[in-house]
């Protein structure tokens, strides 16, 4: 038998029932209020999101259409976002250009963004897809895909990706406000700007000096990565193929782009480059490899701001090379349209 005490004195039963009803009503009202605020805020953000021309994702969906008509859209990670200047690309190719590169994103995100852009009435001539060997060898944090949450009702791809990104996303997405988690800063300022503002290029600043190169070399040597399961690599490659297939279904050409790195670990990349080359060959799409082995200019540390990213000067160099190759491809298509995979195409949009 316990000789324990009780922590609260007991009121009369009738008083207690009335008191409980009051509390239940209070809690229910509070929760109802929370639900109403959630719907209201969610609706507000959803309505305002169509005006956003700042940040990523919402900006891409809102601004890219203005540049898509017969133009070029560049997809990729930060190594596209900060490496390809759309203005230089536009000036040198004579086509409008939009850079839809998104920091820290991988092919699954680009696929979802591609689907969102394909919902637009305008069609570009060319998709440039920046590839990364690490993209198929090293999984990126799934949580990055949550930036697609505002679009999960608009695209099955976006919805799938968001739900995959968090095991509890299926509950969280019931909150309309949650879909704009960590995105509200994109509303600031952006809504006052024009689409031209949304197409501005933001090169990275800074230069790698000897000390920083040495430090980065030391760190990269110490780091290790978990090898990616084979089935995930296969799935990533399959997504690249889907990207190409969907572009073709919409009469859009695809050029694949592999950029340079100042420092790389071949054991991280493994045979990913070979797999990408093989995939490009099988799909008959041009694969432009601007790596530092083929282009000595990219061995110069002063064109980099860190071991993975070019600075503004490097970006101009890379964009120039990309433009040259797009022009070459365009003209070679004019002369040898059979050279590229045109079998299913009524006409060459680059011509």
């Amino acid at each position: 038998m316990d000789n324990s005490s009780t922590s609260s004195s007991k009121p009369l039963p009738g008083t207690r029932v009335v008191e409980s009803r009051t509390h239940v009503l209070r809690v229910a009202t509070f929760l109802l209020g929370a639900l109403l605020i959630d719907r209201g805020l969610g609706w507000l953000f959803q309505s305002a999101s169509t005006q956003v021309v700042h940040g990523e994702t919402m900006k891409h969906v809102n601004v890219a259409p203005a540049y898509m008509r017969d133009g070029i859209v560049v997809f990729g990670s930060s190594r596209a976002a900060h490496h390809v200047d759309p203005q230089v690309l536009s000036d040198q190719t004579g086509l409008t250009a939009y850079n839809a590169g998104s920091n820290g994103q991988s092919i699954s995100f680009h696929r979802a963004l591609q689907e969102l852009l394909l919902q637009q009435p305008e069609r570009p001539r060319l998709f440039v897809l920046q590839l990364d060997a690490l993209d198929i060898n090293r999984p990126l944090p799934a949580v990055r895909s949550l930036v697609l949450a505002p679009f999960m009702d608009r695209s099955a791809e976006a919805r799938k990706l968001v739900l995959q990104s968090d095991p509890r996303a299926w509950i969280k997405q019931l909150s309309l406000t949650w879909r704009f988690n960590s995105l509200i800063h994109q509303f600031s300022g952006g809504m006052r700007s024009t689409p031209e503002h949304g197409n501005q290029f933001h090169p990275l600043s800074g230069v790698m000096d000897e000390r920083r190169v040495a430090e980065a070399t030391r760190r990269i040597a110490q780091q290790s990565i978990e090898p990616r399961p084979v089935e995930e690599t296969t799935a990533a490659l399959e997504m690249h193929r889907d990207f190409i297939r969907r572009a073709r279904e919409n009469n859009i050409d695809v050029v694949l782009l592999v950029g340079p790195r100042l420092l790389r670990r071949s054991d991280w990349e493994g045979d990913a480059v070979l797999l990408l080359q093989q995939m490009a060959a099988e799909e008959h799409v041009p694969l432009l490899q601007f790596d530092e082995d083929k282009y000595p200019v990219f061995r110069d540390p002063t064109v980099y701001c860190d071991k993975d990213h070019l600075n503004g000067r490097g970006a101009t160099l890379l964009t120039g090379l990309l433009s040259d190759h797009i022009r070459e491809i365009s003209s070679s298509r004019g002369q040898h349209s059979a050279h590229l995979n045109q079998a299913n195409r009524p006409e060459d949009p680059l011509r």
Partner: protein
Amino acid sequence: MLFNSIDYFVFLLAVILVYYQLPYRHRWILLLATSYYFYMCWNAFYALLIVLTTAIDYFAALRIHDSENPRARNWWLAASMTSNLGLLFSFKYWNFFWGSLGLAADALSLPWQPPYLDVLLPVGISFYTFQTMSYVIDVYRRHIEPERHFGRFALFITFFPQLVAGPIERATTLIPALRTNHDWNWDHLYIGSQKILFGLFKKVVIADRLGIYVDAIYGNVGQHNGTTYLLATYAFAFQIYCDFSGYSDIAVGSAKLLGIDLMENFRQPYLATNIRDFWRRWHISLSTWLRDYLYIPLGGSRISPLRTQVNLMLTMVLGGLWHGASWNFVIWGSLQGVMLIVCHQTIEHRDRLWASLGVPNWLRDAVRMVITFHLCCLSWVFFRAASLSDAMEILGSIAQGEWSPPFLQLATIVYAMMGLVVLLVAEKIQSQRGSGRDWLNERPWAVRWAVWYSLMFMVILTGVQGSGQFIYFQF
């Protein structure tokens, strides 16, 4: 199962619903079973360690209490301490100890390979080990009666809200609370859920957001300038505070929903005016544990000034080592020890100096707060840096005055600043009124609800998704 996950809140809700339906005498069974389930969600095998610790300390405490023979009592105390510290050493300090000896052997060119134990550190081992040690010591000192109900004693060790990261509760308060019949109380619901919401706010809105920036800087030492390191160190100071105090708030709130009061672990530590004051406000359950079970038994301040300083230093070094098995934590603890000693030695002189200057009290306190905060930041560099060389590189960059504009992740900083402003206002109110909740309760209901809605939607809108574990889980 993390406190900042939906899984935890579903689990907590289920526990609460069943808890209040059960007859009082059966509730310990539910709490014990769910506490073990909570722990086993992380690692089922390591729950056996807790069972072992519980069994040893349960019987040791009974033997200590029932025996009048001092030798037998000492023997049982030694058995309990050896098993507790032995387990802690094996799982937490083995590789550090032998690794350090290995480095020394290397330095002396001795051909010796230190033994290496490839084991995972059991989550919360430092917390529950200290909790159970304090129980046995209190029984030995005859400050408390031993708990004869094995299940309730096991629950004292494993009570899930505070199992993995404290607060390190004392048997004098938690065991009686676990014995008491707690009826459903609406106030407990309000207080508990508000505490949880504020803890969640600190964790996901502030700590995890600042963590993004801190990881980016401290993970790339050698790539940034002094201004950036300084900013990242400030960010880490608030990250670790919000991470740990956020966890403690959720723990206290969760226990409150079950009618049980846990101790407050933090009291606005960055408003401290000196290091001694800081340790009265920071991780209170650990600092009071170290005081009661280490510093005072060593002699405290009742012995010669030199011995007192040695004791203080030893206490803080061991306190540092408690956090983690690395030289960084030893240095962190040593720094705290040195600063405490200097504080003890100079506080009277400084008080006299301030008085002679005729500076208003508010200005004196503000200056002291700023200095104390920066002293804490200095030690946080060692706490956060991945290695000693990284810590020295960071401090070197700051000291050399590389004052070019810092690397900023603007969105990250803006989100964190929004949270920090709310936190600082809340802390200021708490420090002035004793309780922010009491202050809020005096406002009209619309203001109260607006505050709670704001916190809730800041968590939803600006909380970091998929954020990781609490920093103190690794200790």
